[in-house]
């Protein structure tokens, strides 16, 4: 077990290194740099900057240097905990992103939980009553979430909330709780706001979970140990929940890690539409303004989260499945 974790950790570090390189490459890919896009945005308001000033800034930001030099400086900084500064906000990146990443993790974490809550009963039902009307209805319901583009769903939800209830969904907090400390009313306020984006995000990923769970469970239901359990005289629901479901869940646990990148991508769009202060819109903006250290840090940290998520789900899997824990085939 320890050796397993150590091996995974080493692989993780290598992956992260590769990700950092590619992340940096991606943010360098588009033509121009932050200053070009800065000039462009100034020009849109009819403003101009002296080219001299731009050259000065370019030197200050180290933008004129070759790619590898810039990358190396960035990486060296990160190893010392310095992710560089945002060009747009002129602040250290670390100061800007934690709050947003926290919101992202919160919203996406909730979405994962909701997804499981929806997917578990539907997946189990669909497998146990394979090809029944209920199976069809349940899976269609589950898959509609996947099929409706997130931004459309979010938009429709907001519009319906406005026309039916006269409220505007959006944001994560009411103004009075915006900067308040966590307290019971603030948690309540958070949930009153967060349900909508969480729902939109969750419905997008539920179908995949249902699909995997249903397929796994169909396999497990055929296994003889299910008959054994039935022969013991256990009630049917207990038979299914205690044995095949328990086994069908194992491979699902390993999907937790993979869910994250998909959710992050989905949350960018949902956050833009529903106005959530998560990392997504900041990433989008930093990418379009080519605020590269900010964008790079967000990409890197999201990838780190994913890799850690994968590691955790692997360890979790080993913990709950004795076959893996004991190295059995």
């Amino acid at each position: 077990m320890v050796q397993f974790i150590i091996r995974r950790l080493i692989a993780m570090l290598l992956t992260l290194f590769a990700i950092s390189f590619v992340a940096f490459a991606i943010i360098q890919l588009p033509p121009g740099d932050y200053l070009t896009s800065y000039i462009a945005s100034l020009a849109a308001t009819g403003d101009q900057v002296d080219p001299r000033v731009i050259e000065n800034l370019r030197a200050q930001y180290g933008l004129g240097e070759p790619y590898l030099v810039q990358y190396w400086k960035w990486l060296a900084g990160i190893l010392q905990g310095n992710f560089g500064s945002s060009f747009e906000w002129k602040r250290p990146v670390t100061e800007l992103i934690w709050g947003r990443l926290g919101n992202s993790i919160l919203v996406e974490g909730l979405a994962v939980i909701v997804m499981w809550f929806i997917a578990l009963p539907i997946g189990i039902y669909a497998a146990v009553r394979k090809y029944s009307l209920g199976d069809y209805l349940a899976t269609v319901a589950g898959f509609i979430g996947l099929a409706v583009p997130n931004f459309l769903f979010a938009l429709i939800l907001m519009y319906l909330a406005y026309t039916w209830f006269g409220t505007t969904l959006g944001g994560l907090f009411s103004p009075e709780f915006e900067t308040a400390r966590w307290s019971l009313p603030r948690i309540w306020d958070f949930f009153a706001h967060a349900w909508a984006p969480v729902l939109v995000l969750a419905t997008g990923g539920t179908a995949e979970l249902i699909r995997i769970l249903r397929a796994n469970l169909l396999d497990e239901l055929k296994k003889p140990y299910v008959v054994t359990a039935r022969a013991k005289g256990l009630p049917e629901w207990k038979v299914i929940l205690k044995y095949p479901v328990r086994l069908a869940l194992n491979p699902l646990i390993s999907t937790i890690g993979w869910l994250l990148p998909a959710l992050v991508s989905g949350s960018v769009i949902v956050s833009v539409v529903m106005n959530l202060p998560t990392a997504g819109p900041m990433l989008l903006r930093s990418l379009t303004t080519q605020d590269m250290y900010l964008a790079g840090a967000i990409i890197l940290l999201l990838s780190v989260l994913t890799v850690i998520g994968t590691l955790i789900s692997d360890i979790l899997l080993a913990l709950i499945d004795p076959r893996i824990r004991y190295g059995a085939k």
Partner: protein
Amino acid sequence: MRKDQFFGLTGAVAIAAILAAAGPALAAGQAPALEALVASGDLPPLEERLPANPLVVEGDSIGTYGGTWRMGMNGGGDNGLIVKTVAYEGLVRFDRDWQTVVPNLAESWEANADATEYTFKLRDGVKWSDGTPFTSADIAFAVEIYKDPDYPAGSWIDNKNNPVNIEVIDELTFKFKFDKPNGMLMDQMASVDGIHITSLQKAYCSQFHPTYNENAAAEAEAKGFSSWALYLQDRCAWGWETIRFANPDLPTLYGWVIETPLTANASRVTWTRNPYYWKVDAEGNQLPYIDNLDMRVSQGGVEELTLAALNGEIDFQERHIATNVNKPLFFDGQEAGDYHLGEVIPSASNTLVLQLNFNHDDPVKRELYQNKDFRVGISHAIDREEIVDVVFTGQGEPFQVAPRPQSPFYDEELAKQYTEFDPDLAIEHLEAAGLTEMNGDGIRLMSNGEPAKITIDVISALRPEWIDILEIMQLQLAAVGVEIELNNIDRTLFYEKRPGNDFDAQVWAGDGGLEVVQEPRYYFPANDESVWAYKWAQWFNGTRPEIAEEPAEWAKEQMELYTQIRSSSSPEERADLMKQILAITKEQFPVIGVSLMPNSYSIIRNNLRNAPESMFNAWLFPTPSPMDPVVWYFE
């Protein structure tokens, strides 16, 4: 626009200013919250906070204190909303109908005959939001910092062709001196650009500069900045830089001061009244009336903002949400949302300006695009009535790139020439331009035998209707044998292609419909935005000499005239010179316009008083600030 109303207001302001100059104000009232602070001794009494002769701003009615003005920002980078709402406090300002320059922080000024020296006198007793006096020293400091190459700001103050030199005469009097005549200075200072000079308080900002604080570099490093310059930029950003509004400690002269700063993570930016604000109403009550501003920050989408406005959660706004497409929605929602729509007149003249690249690297295209017959032919091939009908639901009229009807420079011939839809005439002109042969697809051939195909760069993300217009134009031009291809690209690339000279044509909106003199980009090759003759503009500006190219004679003549405008101190003379430039523009017809930019609208909550039912929308005239939001109030 109802001109009578506008002039009425202007008159009132002018009279008020004269009255104010005549004697000290009454210092009659202040907000209840401030009264309490005065009573508890936390704040000096009103008389000590107001200047000797506060600026009197009149509204339709005397207001009551209180309330929060709710509005919305689009994304964290939307500093423009703040500039246009709060930060328009220069030495001078425009009156409400954008006609004359009137006093603001400066009580009076005079210029010498050749427009090289301007003397300003500041209002006595104006205080920064931290209570310290605003003096000539602050102006001198701003000039010094703006001219410091380590402080990256783009401004007229450090314009390298003709920078500002300052001479401080006393605490309240100073003189701007220029090497060359600067006849447009007052217009520039009254525009949004004027806020640069009043944006830095010496007492606060000097602590970050090594000239004033020998430890500046060390302190910057301690704060995690790699140089004192970056720390200075962070704490004392110039005029309207986004991060300026991220520092609540920075003293300002605005009506409201920052409560929740505009940081990267802000989902809301809030402001509260400035207890030291230096303007009063007609009865001498300290302004502003409205206690707080609340700007919700959207994360990049405006749909949530649209819904909020429909739901009555926005008190006054035009920016972002008042689109053509949304109008029926807002119109229908007036009763439910308890708001009504006000009129907004754009400063831009045209919905779409087609700029063919006069400096094209391909000699054949260069010659063709410079051929007036070709442009006239294209212009006649466009069925503008149809575009106005389809895209703008009949709003607007066929129009070239010319001053708007509201402008004193309006010239009907310039605005209307070649706008009638006449395919036969179009073909006549195209053939006169040498496009006589056609290929099998019915596309005319250029002199080198290649089909006349124009690739037009457009940023649909900026204005969705551009694509709609171009798609219709595509079909209309195909009918006379000119093919256009739409190249929908992103903004950075759009700008990168200019110095690279890597484009056939670009489109943009018709800026300069009202600010004719300040924004002449389409009338002659004036600046980087004169995309149609980018290299000629470089020749004029000298900013990028490496790619500059000598302009045609007529353009040189215009440039000469504009140089004369800059050196003239007489408004009448400047107007006359501008008219001469426009006459050449009319003759040369460099860019092709489509239709007059239709009026937009603002959303005004029904309980908001003194807010303008009609206003311009421009950047140089940063509305709604010139409409004095400080006298708006809630009933």
